[in-house]
């Protein structure tokens, strides 16, 4: 089943990799199981004691343990293998599904498995008593399953399938409370925005597949690292198109607009979506195709870098002005995704994936923490929170850990990954981007501190009775905060660089900078900016006055408006793209259809019948039939008078008859 090129490819890489044995061969279980579970939950979930949640939970726990086993074997022995199933041939192309087991996919399995498990546990409690509880778990399981389809994909085809399945699951989950129109609209927005990006991905896949004559990723990577001429001509185009796809899922500017709206879904969904699934897909795609980018499409990487940097700064700024706690986190996610993409664009493969790895844990932590808060105070708005650190100590402490990790302070996870990105930028000599990224780190620290201060410090401004959440919700928080602390230790320059080895399955072909020790400039500037951000926020929101008027102090009207309106992007989209298409074009086409085409058709019909009429009246009727008609008209006129004699009375008829008989008899008798 293993492709010959792939074996060669491995031989050029790290020959000590094993094929993974039975464990790798049965990896398909973790991909298929969620779908089976989803079917079971749909049909039988209602009859189970936990309404189907236990099936979902069992599935993700299985995924978690299986991926942990895989990760253990990979970390000790190394695995690289891929499996294919032919599902049809079309022309000379084989359509194949399958699964790939290598460092990158194992890392993703583990992230998905871990985060999903914790989120699912959390959700069993969080969603208690909510509408469509069972269906929620169906979708959630499908969501995790779709992500696994995506990351396990050895062919671009399966990647595309997983990609879109993730999109549709997000549609189901974001629109979970579809009774309200905003929610279903948000779901639609997510789906359509992703679909637009998917067009890029789809065309990119088509371009690559047709130039390499295969849909297998490993084969494409092999060709792109071995100077095949066909792929070289389309590499730049293909690279950009794939990145457009990644921009949709990974919410890069200007296609990030769906992500903040996606907060309409329940909080566990946001956590899962923003941490482990969906948004990481784009970064995963860049990582998976990284040898291609580096080998053939290095110009495309410049575009990737540019958009990454724009996103990390732009989204970070918007996060500062949000009042909705979940939206702060959402924009923070966009900003962090910007970091990852920046890393990829600058050629720092490991750094990008490392940030994905750490971010998955602390962002899941933050979202679940936010969910816990929202569950307690029944509002999303920070202006109605405050002072919750006393009522919700566990949530508070874990949230603080997440915040610090995100702000990038040692020794928590965010510090190491962010530092590696900065170091890489510094090393590559992208000075401007380096400065912007450092600025981004400052902004990150600022808005996170602002959020913490508004939520947990000061006095409670709402009018409910907040309370600490159930154990089922706090335990995942605690576990995740553990991960948020230690996840970064997987790759400490100069100390332990296991993570680099995990994800570097094709060592020789990923030419990247691996800091042997800490890059002092980067570390210093990152650390300073983080601390500065925290300090400034603390000064503005806590030291000088209370939290509520903190915003007023930093409000510079025009910029604030710009940010509050999210750079008028939504406005622009609606005004210049969606409305024209949905209303103007569509109405035009519809009226064209009924007023031009149909009118033409009907006109032809009417004209034909008129022409027929003319031929009929003038030629047929006027000429030939005229003579005949005259006689018939005569008959008709007379008949119309004569018919009056007809009364329908039998006796009268008989009388007329007899009169006739008499007259005729008389004539015969007298005249003849």
């Amino acid at each position, binding site marked *: 089943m293993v492709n010959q090129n792939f074996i060669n490819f491995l031989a050029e890489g790290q020959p000590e990799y094993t094929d993974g044995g039975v464990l790798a061969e049965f990896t398909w279980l973790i991909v298929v199981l969620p779908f089976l579970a989803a079917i079971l939950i749909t049909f039988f979930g209602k009859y189970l004691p936990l309404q189907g949640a236990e099936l979902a939970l069992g599935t993700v726990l299985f995924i978690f343990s299986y991926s942990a086993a895989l990760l253990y074997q990979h970390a000790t022995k190394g695995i690289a293998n891929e499996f294919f199933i032919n599902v049809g041939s079309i022309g000379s192309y084989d359509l194949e599904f399958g699964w790939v087991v290598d460092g990158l996919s194992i890392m993703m399995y583990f992230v998905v498995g871990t985060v999903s498990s914790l989120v699912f546990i959390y959700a069993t409690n969080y969603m208690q008593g909510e509408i469509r509880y069972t269906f929620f778990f169906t979708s959630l399981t499908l969501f995790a399953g779709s992500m696994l389809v995506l990351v396990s994909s050895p062919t671009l085809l399966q990647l595309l399938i997983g990609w879109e399945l993730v999109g549709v699951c997000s549609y189901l989950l974001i629109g979970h409370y579809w009774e309200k129109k905003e929610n279903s609209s948000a779901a639609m927005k997510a789906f359509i925005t992703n679909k637009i990006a998917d067009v890029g991905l789809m065309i990119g896949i088509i371009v690559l597949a047709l130039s390499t004559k295969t849909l297998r990723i490993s084969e494409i990577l092999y060709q792109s690292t071995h100077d095949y001429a066909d792929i070289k001509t389309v590499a730049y185009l293909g690279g950009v198109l794939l990145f457009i796809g990644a921009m949709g899922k990974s919410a890069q500017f200007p296609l990030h607009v769906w992500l903040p709206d996606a907060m309409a879904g329940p909080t566990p969904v946001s956590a899962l979506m923003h941490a482990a699934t969906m948004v990481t897909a784009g970064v995963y795609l860049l990582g998976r195709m990284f040898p291609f980018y580096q080998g053939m499409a290095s110009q495309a990487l410049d575009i990737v870098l540019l958009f990454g940097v724009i996103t990390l700064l732009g989204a970070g700024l918007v996060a500062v002005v949000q009042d909705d706690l979940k939206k702060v986190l959402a924009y923070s996610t966009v900003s962090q995704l910007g970091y990852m993409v920046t890393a990829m664009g600058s050629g720092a493969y490991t750094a990008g994936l490392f940030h994905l790895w750490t971010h998955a844990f602390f962002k899941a932590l933050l979202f679940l923490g936010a969910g816990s808060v929202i569950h307690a105070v029944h509002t999303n708005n920070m202006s109605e929170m405050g002072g919750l650190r006393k009522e919700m100590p566990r949530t508070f402490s874990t949230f603080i850990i997440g915040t610090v990790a995100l702000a990038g302070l040692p020794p928590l996870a965010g510090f190491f990954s962010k530092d590696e990105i900065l170091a890489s930028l510094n090393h590559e000599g992208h000075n401007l981007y380096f400065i912007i990224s450092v600025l981004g780190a400052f902004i990150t620290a600022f808005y996170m501190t602002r959020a913490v201060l508004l939520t947990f410090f000061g006095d409670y401004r709402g009018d409910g009775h907040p309370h600490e959440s159930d154990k089922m919700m706090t335990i995942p928080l605690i576990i995740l905060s553990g991960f948020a602390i230690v996840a970064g230790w997987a790759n400490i320059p100069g100390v332990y660089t296991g993570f680099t080895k995990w994800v570097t399955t094709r060592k020789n072909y990923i030419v990247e900078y691996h800091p042997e020790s800490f890059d002092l400039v980067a570390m210093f500037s990152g650390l300073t900016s983080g601390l500065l951000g925290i300090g400034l926020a603390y000064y503005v929101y806590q030291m000088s006055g209370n939290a509520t008027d903190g915003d007023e102090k930093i409000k510079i009207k025009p910029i604030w408006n710009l940010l509050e309106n999210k750079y008028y992007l939504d406005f622009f989209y609606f005004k210049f793209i969606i409305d024209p298409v949905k209303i103007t074009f569509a109405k035009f086409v519809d009226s064209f259809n009924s007023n031009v085409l149909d009118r033409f058709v009907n006109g032809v019909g009417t004209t034909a019948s008129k022409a027929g009429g003319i031929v009929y009246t003038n030629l047929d009727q006027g000429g030939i039939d005229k003579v005949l008609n005259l006689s018939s008209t005569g008959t008709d006129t007379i008949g119309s008078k004569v018919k009056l004699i*007809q*009364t*329908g*009375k*039998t*006796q009268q*008829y*008989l*009388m007329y008859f*007899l009169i006739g008989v008499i007259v005729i008899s008389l004539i015969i008798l007298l005249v003849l």
Partner: protein
Amino acid sequence: MSIQPLLIAAAALFSIGIYGILVRRNAVMVLLSIELILNSVNINFVAFNAMLSDVFLNGQIFSIFIITIAAAEVGIGLAIVLMLFRNRETANINEFDLMKW
């Protein structure tokens, strides 16, 4: 007995029947008048039979047939009248003008 009075009487009976058909409103009465006409024909047949001293008795046999057919006719005619009466609630033939154009 000469033949002339018989034939004239039959003709008179025939004319009376015609009058009845033309004048009567009730469908049953019209049927009665028809019987008169048929009877006049019977008289003619039997009279001619007697006059011609027919060996094969054609006249008598025909009158028997006529009587038979007349019986059938009365049966059907009354059934039709009954039908019409049932549908129209009247036996007045003036109201049956279905044969109008």
